[in-house]
């Protein structure tokens, strides 16, 4: 079966017509005159380790699927089985919390998607997905940072936020990106002591240079984030007791940070200038005993899906202007390996959520699972470049003009609009 479903995200035609750009005082501006320039939001979630896309959005209608994944394939069943999407693809049951979004068409998937670079190294593949320049190892900035540099700004210190204590590669670069600790609501350092802050502020405020500006920017971001997180009125009515978790370092598994959706939504809701956020999760490298409907993979998908549902609920009225992208550096082998797991592969499934998404559909050029359809007889090929998807999200949903997109993904030319052709 050769399934050729192309993306038609541009029922967004209405949005597209608004995205014509006019040169403005900051280089460009929206043409509809109504849009607040920070009203379009973007949240990027990176799953580090190589999520097994073939068991997240499973091609259960393909005759090969059960054969090549004898112990890990998902099955339809009366209860707890895979969730049918279009009688060819089915969704992992752990994603049930976001299934309503699929039904109301604000959740879409793009299958067989990935980097054009053939590497199967986590190290290289994550690097390329974060730099946005596959194959070029010396690219020093991340594409989200380049995006922030291209966005019209109100000089908010919290326009862009990365969850975690370390600025990830995707956010590296000259544009300011604030960091917010996962789980902990408020991070305090010596500078939170009034006397310390007062003395250093006096020292740095006299500097009429970039170091002085950096200090002011940093203090403002730090205070804003702490204010947002300390505000007594939470946008959630239910108890937050379970949200108090011990902070983990690095890319924690979603189990260790189940309240990420609530925390992100709180940041966006309480400060209108927050426009871009990034969070990453580890634990997707399922070489051994990944399970099927239940098991290791399900154990990671479940808190992720719950968090996403929290996020959408928490965003409330902002959701219509928000794009949420979930991606992973590569997919895994089509065949199950000898240990009940899967090894590093290529094509994967990208998830798109948001008010501007023409969802309820699985997009992408999915060629089937027969050996000849696979890359090197083993992996789903990446038939859609991940940047093609991101280009549409940024261009049509965030209204980033073409000239700016060329800075975000230098050297990348979408081969036609894969979403509409």
């Amino acid at each position, binding site marked *: 079966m050769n399934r050729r479903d192309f993306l038609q995200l541009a029922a967004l035609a209405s949005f597209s017509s608004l995205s014509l750009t006019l040169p403005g005082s*900051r*280089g460009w501006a929206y043409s509809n005159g109504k849009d607040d320039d920070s009203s379009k939001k973007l949240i990027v979630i990176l799953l580090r*380790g190589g999520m097994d896309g073939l068991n997240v959005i499973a091609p259960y209608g393909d005759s090969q699927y059960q054969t090549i994944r004898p112990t890990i394939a998902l099955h339809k069943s009366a209860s707890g089985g895979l969730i049918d999407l279009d009688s060819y693809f089915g969704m992992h049951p752990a994603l049930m919390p976001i299934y309503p979004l699929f039904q109301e068409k604000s959740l879409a998937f793009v299958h067989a998607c990935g980097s054009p670079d053939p590497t199967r190294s986590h*190290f290289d593949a994550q690097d390329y997905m974060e730099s946005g320049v596959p194959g070029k*190892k*010396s*690219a*020093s*900035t991340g594409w989200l940072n380049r995006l*922030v*540099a*291209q*966005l*019209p700004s109100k*000089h908010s210190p919290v326009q862009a936020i990365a969850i975690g204590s*370390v*600025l990830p590669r995707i956010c*590296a670069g*000259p*544009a*300011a990106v*604030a960091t917010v600790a996962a789980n902990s609501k408020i991070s*305090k*350092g*010596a*500078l939170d*002591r*009034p*006397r*310390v*802050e*007062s*003395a*250093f*502020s*006096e*020292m*740095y*405020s*006299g500097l009429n240079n*970039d*170091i*002085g*500006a*950096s*200090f*002011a920017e*940093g*203090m*403002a*971001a*730090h205070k804003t984030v702490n204010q947002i997180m300390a505000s007594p009125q939470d946008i959630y009515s239910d108890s937050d007791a379970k949200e108090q978790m011990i902070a983990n370092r690095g890319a924690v598994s979603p189990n260790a940070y189940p309240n990420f959706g609530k925390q992100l939504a709180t940041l966006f809701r309480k400060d209108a200038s927050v426009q871009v956020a990034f969070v990453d999760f*580890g634990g*997707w*490298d*399922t*070489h051994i005993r990944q399970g099927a409907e239940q*098991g290791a993979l399900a154990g990671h998908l479940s808190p992720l899906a719950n968090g996403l549902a929290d996020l959408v609920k928490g965003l409330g009225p902002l959701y219509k202007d928000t794009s949420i992208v979930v991606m992973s550096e590569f997919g895994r082998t089509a065949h199950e390996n000898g*240990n009940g797991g899967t090894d590093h592969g290529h094509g994967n499934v990208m998830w798109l959520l948001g008010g501007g998404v023409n969802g309820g559909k699985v997009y992408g050029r999915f060629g089937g699972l027969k050996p000849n359809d696979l890359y090197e007889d083993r992996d789903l090929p990446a038939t859609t470049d991940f940047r093609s998807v991101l280009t549409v999200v940024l261009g049509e949903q965030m209204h980033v003009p073409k000239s700016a997109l060329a*800075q975000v993904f230098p050297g990348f030319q979408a081969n036609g609009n894969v979403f509409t052709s």
Partner: protein
Amino acid sequence: MKQESAVFLTVQLLFGPALFSTLVVLPSSPVLAASRSKHVSTARVKMAKSGSSMASLGPVSAPKPLTSDQKVVQVLNRLTFGAKPGDFERVKAMGVKAYIASQLNPSSIAENPAVEAQVASAEIIHKKSADLIKEFRLVIAQNNAARKEANSKDASKEEQAMKQKHIKVVADQIFKTRLVRALDSERQLQEVMVDFWYNHFNISINKGLDHVLIGVYEEQAIRPNALGRFRDILGATCYHPAMLFYLDNWQNAAPGTLMVVPGGSTKDKAKKKGGLNENYARELMELHTLGVDGGYTQKDVIELARVLTGLSLPTRGYWGQFYAVRHDQGEKVILGHKIKAKGAGEIEEALDFLAHHPSTAHHISYALAQYFVADEPPKALVDRMAKRFSESDGDIKAVLTTMLESREFFDGQYQNNKYKSPFRYAMSSLRASGSRPAHYEPIYSFLKLQGQPLYACLTPDGYKNTKEAWLNSDALLKRINFATAIGSANFSSAGGNRALSQSSGQSYDQVLSTVNGGQLSSRTSAVIAKSPEPFKMSLLLGSPEFMSY
């Protein structure tokens, strides 16, 4: 347990003991108008892109020769990881010229016994690469076996745990040795040059095998050649298994030949037919020698990759091994230079050719001038250094001498114009204050928080040393928090800070002499003058002056 204590210490270090019992009313919020506009950010991205070929046209303003005291400050700033109390007076007494001469000849300087002891105790940096590879493979095999037996549910967790354990071993020896040397080696310029070359020929601890090889790579390929000939360090990095693994040349083989190499851990790999891997060949020209604008083409990358086919991981010894059966037997042409087929000798010929190419002389000189003089180094200086590079057959000491005798190096325009990298910031604050960590984990954590974890730059271009790369608002606040902890540790009374030992008890004035020879801006001086005594050191180490060098 150890993890927990590391976290605890970090918290201690970053937060420091409470300093004040009285609270003072906050001043009004800092003026936000000073925030950098996105225009500036965009301009910076563009600037960064035009890359290494760009040099400023030199001082537009009239030359501002440094005074003799300022010259002492300049050599201490640039030839060391930051002055220690007493350094200023010492160098002033011996003379700037004599100091430079001694630092250029590290073997003439008696080494600090504590440093020698640490180096001797770090077994992992003295081993043979082949042995480290074997040990690593064994650990992995045992781990896989144990995992199957244990019927484990969560593979990634165990892989993670195993890796963490290894990284811990590495950290205890390699990281600590690096820090002890940077902090207390008397041969400071050698250590500074190790930092320069390691980043020039960068490999990352995060890539598989390399997490056991970084130590021997630095100790055997980089450090012995740091002040030697460029051709030697180029050859040493080329043949070192750590580089062969990092940039994939161990898999680079003439198409169709069998992938029978010791690195192939699975049957799958052993059966696999080889093919060209251009990764190392590309970076060898783009980053290590000619530079991105050095005049090579994609065709040259492929030709050089063909030259390098067959150079892979060793079964014994310190260096890589050449597997003739995997080598491309044809003739190659690199930038118009014909290389006749002669097996391993082709690699020597290609390295000779690249090391002597004028683009390489310029590329290396630019990088050195950027590291030691200015983010956009003066073109005239770079040109003179490149000329010296070519005339001296790539003698690094000679090129540095040209730079250190130049008018530009001792011009006021190029003093305190460099922004410290996180590594330099951490080392200089510890050197200045005389504090030494009882445990090094808080320092590793700080560097990680700053975005410069030790040995973990993912990309082969290494950590940058420019302001554009490191001036970041969030990171700046964390530096100040760090400074507050370091500064207060020296004066904290009962109990003290558990993360720090050997508080030197330096007086504020002694430490002040390490910062720009004691010269601070009037504003910084005023703020410090009116602050209570125990807080002065923190203010000094967190001051704008201390961020630059």
